[in-house]
Each structure stands twice: as structure tokens, then as C-alpha cells.
């Protein structure tokens, strides 16, 4: 499979940046609006799957190796656990929210009740959203890419 026709490729070229921006917006505003790391990661990974459909998995494999993607996934997992361990160091418990209420990054406590969207709130939750987002993007994309490549190859080296 060497990709689909020129019409599909042009449409994907237009739609891909919009999907990326929307997915990254859902990840970044996970503590304010519906969404979060998992949902935004799934959106970005489906945008990448659109690239795989339009251009063919062989072309995508030339651009990025699966080893790099799976190391991105490990980076996301290690970041998530590292933020949780920092809670053990600076707060009292594992997964402690040590940034909420401090004057550091994301430290503001919002007013009770219906409030506007203040991005600088949430403590460690935006950091965890980001780590999980990286993890889900890399994980789902590597699954889709490897399965598409394996189904397009005639002979397996078993």
C-alpha cells in the first residue's frame, strides 16, 4: 500500500493540523473543561491514524521508528510516576497534591462555586494530564502503526 489518491492526501493535509490543535487544547485544558489526558491523547492519536490511512504505513515508518514512539511512551509513564513520587517528597503521601495552595506554578485556589476558567489552577493535575497525554498519544499511535504495517506485509519472518 503506497497511500491513497491525491484528493485524500490533500484533505488529510488540511485536517491534520486542526486535529492536532484540538487534541492539544483538550489535553492542556483538562482541569477546566470536559476532557483530559486520555481523551485528548485519543484525539491526537486518531489524527495520526488518519496520516497512516492516507499515506500508507511504509511511508510513515520511514519518517518515525517504532522504537522512538515506545520510548516516548516510557517517558510519559516515568513522568507520571515521578510527579506522584514528588508528592511523597514534598507532601505527605504518594499522589499528594503539593502544588495546590502554594505560590508556585498552577498554585491558585479558585473561588467556590461557578467560576471563570483560570488556567493557573489545579496543582499537579495539569502536569499529570500532560504526562498521561504523551503516554496515550505514543501508545495508541504505535499500536495502530504496527498493526497496519503487519497487515500490509505479505510474508512474516516466523
Amino acid at each position, binding site marked *: 500500500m503506497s497511500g491513497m489518491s491525491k484528493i485524500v492526501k490533500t484533505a488529510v493535509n488540511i485536517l491534520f493540523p486542526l486535529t492536532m490543535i484540538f487534541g492539544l487544547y483538550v489535553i492542556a485544558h483538562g482541569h477546566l*473543561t470536559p476532557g483530559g489526558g486520555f481523551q485528548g491523547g*485519543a484525539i491526537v492519536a486518531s489524527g495520526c491514524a488518519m496520516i497512516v490511512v492516507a499515506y500508507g504505513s511504509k511511508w510513515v515508518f520511514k519518517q518515525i521508528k517504532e522504537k522512538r514512539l515506545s520510548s516516548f511512551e516510557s517517558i510519559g509513564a516515568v513522568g507520571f510516576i515521578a510527579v506522584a513520587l514528588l508528592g511523597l517528597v514534598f507532601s505527605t503521601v504518594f499522589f499528594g497534591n503539593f502544588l495546590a495552595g502554594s505560590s508556585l506554578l498552577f498554585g491558585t485556589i*479558585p473561588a467556590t*462555586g*461557578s*467560576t471563570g476558567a483560570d488556567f493557573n489552577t489545579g496543582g499537579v493535575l495539569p502536569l499529570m494530564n500532560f504526562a498521561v497525554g504523551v503516554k496515550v498519544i505514543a501508545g495508541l499511535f504505535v499500536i495502530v502503526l504496527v*498493526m497496519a504495517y503487519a497487515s500490509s506485509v505479505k510474508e512474516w519472518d516466523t
Partner: protein
Amino acid sequence: MIEYIPFIVVATMIFIGLYAVLFRRNLIKIVIGISIIESGVNLFLITLGYREDGVAPIFTSLPPGTTYPAGMVLPVPQALTLTSIVIGVAVLALMLSLVMHIYRKYGTLDVRKIRRLKE
């Protein structure tokens, strides 16, 4: 009767999935049945957490006149459903990979033929 309709829908979805798992011979159809059962369970969790005339438990620009906590749906079943959905995607990918491998090895997807040992 009308207040039981979501649960009846959940039970129907689980029946359809169970029928596909028990009576179909094709591995792909069995995987589809497992996926439908999973959707039914997710829907059941969401249904348990609904509160009458509730809005989503998000405080960013609430609709005016909302009382909380009595006017919001329960957040814990929603969070567990989110966990369940991601686990479902991971398990589905693993099952489909195994099915692809079985097809390469045996040349068929019929469970009656796969059950016999090869070589």
C-alpha cells in the same frame, strides 16, 4: 416502567454480546461480541451515576441556577468509566493482534478448526 428503560438497554447490549461470544464460530465476531459487552458495562456504570436533571460536575461557567452538590451527576462512576474505556481499548488491540497472528499461523479463523493441534 419508563425509569427502567436504560437498564433494559444495558441488558440487551450484554445479551447481544453474549450471543456473539457463545454461538459464533468466527474469532473476529467473538472479539466484536466482547467489545459490545464492554460497551454495555460502561453504559451501566454511567447509568448508575446519573442524578435527575443533573449537569456535568464541572464548575467552569455553570448554568445559572444550578445547585450543587444536589444538581450534579456523580463524578466517581464517570472517572471509573474513563479508566474502563482505556483498558478496553488496550485489551481490544491485544486481542486483534493475537487474532492476526492466529490467522497467519493456521490460515483460518474458525474456532473448531483452530482447536485441533497443528503438526
